[in-house]
């Protein structure tokens, strides 16, 4: 039996050093809603647990002006939900983060943990991809930034080098007439993992889409940024033809598996259905902005 060490460093430098020193035998603890389950199941057996919640940058919510935000990777969904303005600027991101698990889980689970768990079905990831969020990463060799969609490498795998820690997410300026939305298909009303998750982020001017990003989850080894779907929406007034074309693009982007949560045929179909529904919600919100 191996003993597990617990560290709760107060600074990022300390955390990075400890993480690098453990050379793969450490796990980062944010909300722990995946880690503790995996440890209990014997899937993960870390020698060291590094609790990052005592590091200020990991738990801060910074309003950068113009709708831009930087949020610490370990901020729990429930805390973000209580922020006075984040949800106004990024309602789709907030609703996605707050679909991670129950109220109990929302008290712990964070977007950083959701991303770093590496599941293609993580709810917050498609929303952050659609938002164009940028991830700030700190490692033994310094810091770097990656778009959210560049972080996952496959189920349970990340494009991070040993010792690198996800620190925060930066959400860009919000032009007038912009908003976002996220929906997922689950069989129950709550407590399920997304069978398909889809986020749309739109900017609109006079009813015409001027910019769009579409994030699509649980239909491929990683969460997808579906450029073709966005392209189909840009310049449109979200007419049926444009929506159908975007839905086609989402279906075409799907590369899912048959598993206990859904079939290939079902997931592919649902990706198209959700595109239309989510785009409508995002457009309505953008119109209201």
């Amino acid at each position, binding site marked *: *039996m191996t003993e597990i060490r617990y560290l709760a460093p107060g600074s990022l430098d300390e955390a990075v050093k400890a993480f690098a020193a453990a050379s793969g035998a450490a796990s980062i603890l944010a909300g722990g809603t995946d880690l503790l389950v995996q440890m209990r199941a014997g899937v993960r057996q870390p020698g060291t647990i590094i609790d990052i919640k005592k590091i200020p940058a990991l738990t801060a919510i910074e309003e950068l002006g113009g709708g831009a935000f930087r949020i610490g990777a370990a901020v729990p969904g429930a805390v973000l939900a209580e922020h006075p303005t984040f949800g106004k600027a990024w309602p789709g991101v907030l609703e996605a983060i707050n679909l991670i698990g129950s109220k109990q889980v929302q008290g712990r689970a964070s977007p950083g943990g959701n991303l770093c768990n590496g599941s293609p079905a993580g709810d917050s990831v498609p929303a952050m991809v659609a938002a164009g969020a940028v991830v700030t990463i700190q490692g033994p060799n310094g810091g770097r930034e990656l778009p959210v969609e560049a972080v996952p490498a496959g189920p349970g795998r990340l494009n991070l080098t040993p010792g690198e820690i996800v620190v925060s997410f930066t959400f860009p300026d919000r032009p007038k007439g912009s908003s976002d939305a996220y929906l997922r298909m689950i069989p*129950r*009303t*709550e407590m*399920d*993992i997304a069978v398909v998750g889809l986020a749309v982020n739109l900017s609109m001017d006079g009813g015409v889409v001027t910019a769009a990003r579409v994030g699509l989850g649980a239909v491929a080894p990683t969460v997808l940024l579906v450029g073709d779907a966005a392209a189909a929406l840009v310049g449109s007034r979200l007419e049926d033809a444009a929506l159908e074309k975007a839905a086609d693009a989402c279906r075409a982007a799907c590369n899912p598996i048959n598993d206990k949560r859904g079939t290939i045929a*079902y997931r592919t*179909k649902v990706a198209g*259905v959700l595109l239309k529904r989510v785009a409508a919600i995002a457009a309505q919100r953008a119109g209201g902005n």
Partner: protein
Amino acid sequence: MNEMSTKWIGARTIRPDGADKVTGRAQYSADYNMPGMVWGKILRSPHAHAAIRSIDTSKAEALPGVKAVVTAKDMVSFPVDKAVALGIQDMRWMARNMLAHEKALFHGHPIAAVAAINEQVAAEACKLIVVDYEVLPHAIEIEDAIKPDAPILHDFMKHEGKPSNIAGTMVLKAGDIENGFAEADVVVERTFTTRPVHQGYIEPHACTVSYAADGRVTIWSSSQGQFMVRAMTSLLTGIPQSNIRAIPAEIGGGFGAKTIVYLEPVAVLLSKKSGRPVKIVMSRDDVQRATGPAPGSLMTVKIGAKKDGTLVAAKGDFYLQAGCLPGSPLRGPVGCSFAAYAIPNVLSTGYDVVSNRSKVAAYRAPGAPHGAFAAETVLDEIAEKLGLDPLEMRIRNSVKPGDKAIYGAVFGDVTFTETVDAIRKHPHYKAPLDKNPRPGVKRGRGVASGFWYNAGGESSVQVNITEDGNVVVTTGHPDVGGSRASIANVVAELIGIEHGRVNVIIGDTQTIGFSNLTGGSRVTFASAMVATASCEKVIGQLKDRAAKIWKIDADAVKWEDGMALPAGDNAGKFPPLSLKELAAKANEMGGPIGTQVQLNTTGADPGFATHCVDVEVDVDLGIIRVLRYTAAQDVGRALHPSYVEGQIQGGVVQGIGWALSEEYLYDKNGKVDNATFLDYRMPVCSDVPMIEALVIEIPNSKHPQGVRGVGEAPIVPPLAAIANAVYDALGKRFFALPMSPPKVTERLDAAD
């Protein structure tokens, strides 16, 4: 008795076990510890089907901190060729389920057990047990298990003279089925499948046991019958029942599955070998993987009717999954599916099919929901073909008092039509339903009925008058749904005192007489009947005491409102003697007041239920949600209406899960793929609406308070009611459960 004023019977009193349960003080099976206790852990099979060539436990035994290791060899042996019945269980199969003997029969089958100083060491020791397996091909689904070339689980098992996975059959007949169908104007035949579903109790199985130096055993565990725990432990360990004290912990849900044990005998063997108290707690993974779900089924039902809706013939073939050892609940579908209807020609056949999955256990009206799904869906189709109201057709065909049931009994009271009528007249059934409320959304309404046998059986109840003149009642039944609350109401009523002066507790095996399982919708029926007999005896004692004090004849004393009174003017004039006064004089007038009555109760007439449900379908995503649900049931007499409603509401929501989202999924290696509450999808609070329970009270004339069993009938109609509602919404019938979103869209996208 029914004309008596009822101050407490039917009152919504606060349950005797309530305050402990809302404050966290109630002790469940995993909440109990003993001095010097060690931890037990079960090693489980990593194969779905494998012969066990040998088990080497020496390395595990040598690990520091390990106190004992046991395997099937440590158990009393039950050879396969000699049945040993305990209730409806056969100890040959219970033994092999608890610890694998010749073969590992499912992924998760217990192979050996370890006791060690803590859970970590026990887990480590399990890894050191070397099992030499010969891995065999496996069969999970019924279709695969009954194929001619299927891997055979038990070479001693034969069907029609050939080695087979069909462990047994059950056939019930009436009339002449061929002639019956020949008379029919319309015949509908459909084939159905349902998936195994777990009972889903939130409390995992657990126990703490002590085998003392003098051979006396104490078992602390939750179950649906402490006497069953004692009997099975005795049979499997060879320890006499007089030396086993099984103490019933509070039970965190059972729904039938805790009518058998998985851990207690194994823990006792570990305790005996180690000389230490042993605690074993299952994980949720263990529970989902290796404790009884209800069987899956493959069923064909054919029903024939005359143009006027009169049913003339019904045929059912019901294949049920037994799991890895024989014993699926065939009497459920075979006996219940057509029981509510007076059909002259019936042939109902059940097949008990073994396959490489955990042995099934009872689940609320075992087997009946399956059969009702098939039969009540076919009836709906017949009604539609004939242009009849489906409720009207049910009323027209109801069995009558004096009819002989297909399962042999003769019906006494029949209150089926009252349940149908209650739905027919209810605003829900009459309310307009907008079938196309929004684009992409369809709504529909469905009805279905259900039948359950109900049961009587053995119960013991003590009623003791305390020295200060209050009442303590001890029953022998674990309380799963409020039976203590019901019995408190009955006793307060009969003794004629304030409810708060009655306390009801559950005795252990050595402090109360034999009481059969809490199951079969029998406990409130039986224990109220026996409590009544106990109260009558105690009231007799109290009247005797008053007679002695007054020096008059006991017949000249009556008991009213908790007091002895002279029965009439001729008896003489005496001031009343209260219970408190009589209790204070108890010792000088003959000793303590109290009694125990033990009876094998009879007269539990069947239960009938009829349900109505509205559903909404998101057509593009295939998601079905229940919008409104009304469940009518004759309960005879609701001793405590809240807990009667609670039984109905809980049963319905379990039925909703069964119909829409719950199922066992296996991977290609024969391992359960969804052994978590995340992926085994039981309804959560936001999935369901309020469930309106229409409690119909037509007193059962064979019961002192008029009680009829309640707990099981509510889960019988929902599967078919929901399927019929989905048909009403979509115009397509579903013959397979669950109606999960991928299956709904697949069906909607199909050509037909």
